Structure formats: C-alpha cells, structure tokens
C-alpha cells in the first residue's frame, strides 16, 4: 500500500443517511438536489459550502464518465449512478458510485492512491500543473478528484468491485469535518 499523506478519519457507528439518489445525473436533477444538500447541511456552514462543491464535482463526473448511459434522445443523454450523503456526529461522508470499464477502474484507483500520497502543498501544485496542461475546451480540466481531496483534507476512499469481464462498479467516498 502506498504511503498516505492524507488521514483517514476513524468512523463511528452512528452513521445515518441524509440524502441519496440513484438514476440519471441530468444537470437539472443535480441542481434540485444541490438545494437540498445546502438545506440539510446548513447547521455547519463551512462544511455545507464544501459539500456543495464536492457534490457537483463528483456528481458531474458521473454525468460525463459513467459507463452506464441514460439516453432520452440524441440531445439528452447522461451518465447513470448513485450519490449518498451520510453523517455521524463529527463528519459528513459524500459517496458516489457508478459503472466503469474495468481498465478505467484500475486507472482511477491508482489516481486516488497517488492523490492520497500527497500532502496539501504538493497536491495543490499538481492541480495547478494539471490544469495548465489540460487541453480544456471539450475535455474539461481533469482535476476533479484533486479538487475533492483538497477540499476534504482527508484521504479519498475508493472501492472497485468487478461486475463482469468488461465492467466494474466504482465507489468513491469523500470525508468532511462538520466543524
């Protein structure tokens, strides 16, 4: 296992689900849920702002990159997946899950492990370098996972589960302090 520069919080038992959804990740659906994310986390304003950012970053990764697609017509197709917001006394946990090609799952796992091995200073530098190098335009910035890790300050928790020869299920959890 690679060295972890980012801590993993100790989990308590009293975890409850605040909000969850499974289905197509159209932007209009995400917009509606984002309002609930703000409302349901308003008791912890700093964490609420962070969760809002992570919500969109990880959810839009499903929109663009999920291997399972919902297509209404040629102009309306989007990725399918799941998000869940959980909490215990001290933390929020934001989890997304979606289908990926098996080889992409391996790449994502390696990328998360590398991100987790970097401290904040090095991770910010990597993010800056990556954003400058990204081709932009249609390909985005490719720094979403880094951004989530920077906002979180904890290790990204990733699980890859094989579905069949071609696909895996990719689950990512981001942890946030409530205070």
């Amino acid at each position, binding site marked *: 296992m690679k060295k972890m520069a980012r801590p993993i919080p100790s989990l308590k038992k009293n975890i409850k689900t605040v909000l969850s959804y499974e289905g197509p990740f159209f*932007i209009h659906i995400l917009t509606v849920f984002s309002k609930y994310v703000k409302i349901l986390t308003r008791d912890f304003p700093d964490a609420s*702002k962070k969760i809002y*950012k992570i919500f969109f970053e990880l959810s*839009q990764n499903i929109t663009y990159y999920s291997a399972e697609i919902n297509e209404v017509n040629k102009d309306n197709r989007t990725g399918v997946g799941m998000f869940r917001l959980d909490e215990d006394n001290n933390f929020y946990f934001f989890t997304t899950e979606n289908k990926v090609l098996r080889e992409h799952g391996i790449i994502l796992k390696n990328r998360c492990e590398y991100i987790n091995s970097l401290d904040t200073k090095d991770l*910010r530098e990597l993010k800056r370098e990556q*954003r*400058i190098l990204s081709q932009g335009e249609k390909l985005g910035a490719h720094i*979403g996972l880094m951004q989530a890790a920077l*906002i979180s300050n904890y290790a990204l928790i990733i699980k890859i589960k094989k579905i069949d020869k071609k696909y895996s299920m990719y689950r990512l959890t981001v942890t946030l302090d409530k205070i």
Partner: protein
Amino acid sequence: MENLVMHTSPETPYFPRVNFNYETGVCEIAGESFMEETYKFYAPLMAWLEEYIAEKKKVILNLKLTYFNTSSSRSILDILDLLREYKESGGEIEVYWFYDSNDPDMEDEVEDFRIESGIDIQLKPFK
C-alpha cells in the same frame, strides 16, 4: 461592438451572469458556473474579449463567482491567460475577484489562479 450581456435564471442557475461593457471596459462574470459543455458557454466571452482588446482599450475584469466547477476553472484560466498576453503586449488590465470571506477555500483558489496565470488578481471580500 455591442455589449455582451447574458442573464441567469432560477431554471438555469448553472450559468453565471455576464456583463461585458464596451464603453467602460468593465467585464463582469457573477453567480455560479457549473454548466455542461463549458467551452460552449465561454467561447463567446473569449471572442468578445479578443475583439475588444484588438482596439487596445483597458479591461477591468470583475469575477464574482461564488461557485465554479473545475471545468469552468479551465475556461476562467483561458480568460486570464488572454489578459496576461494582452498586458505583456502593452495592454492595460485590472482583475478583481470578489469573494465570500466565509468561504474557506476561495482564497486558495484565487492564489492558484494568480500563480497559473501570472496576473495580479486583487481579492475583495463582498461580505
């Protein structure tokens, strides 16, 4: 040249408000930016700025984004890079970032933009 004005709405909160003024050179982007196909939204903003700076006029860029996704951040960097090149060729620019002082991450974001773009972005809290 005409002004460039784009409105946001409750139905499309993922588009920021845009107001680029030809007479004053004040160019404002405000609200939230998390649309799909980011490049399609920002392409006309870049085109307007390219046409405007060809007239060698001063640009005052006011960024008032309370949230932007990482796709949008790439487009914002493209705008900042354009302004840096304009400044290096003798053009006059001022760039301000208005932010919520209660947002724990925005100062770091702007610092990253400063480093990546090489532009002096002045932070101004609006709360």
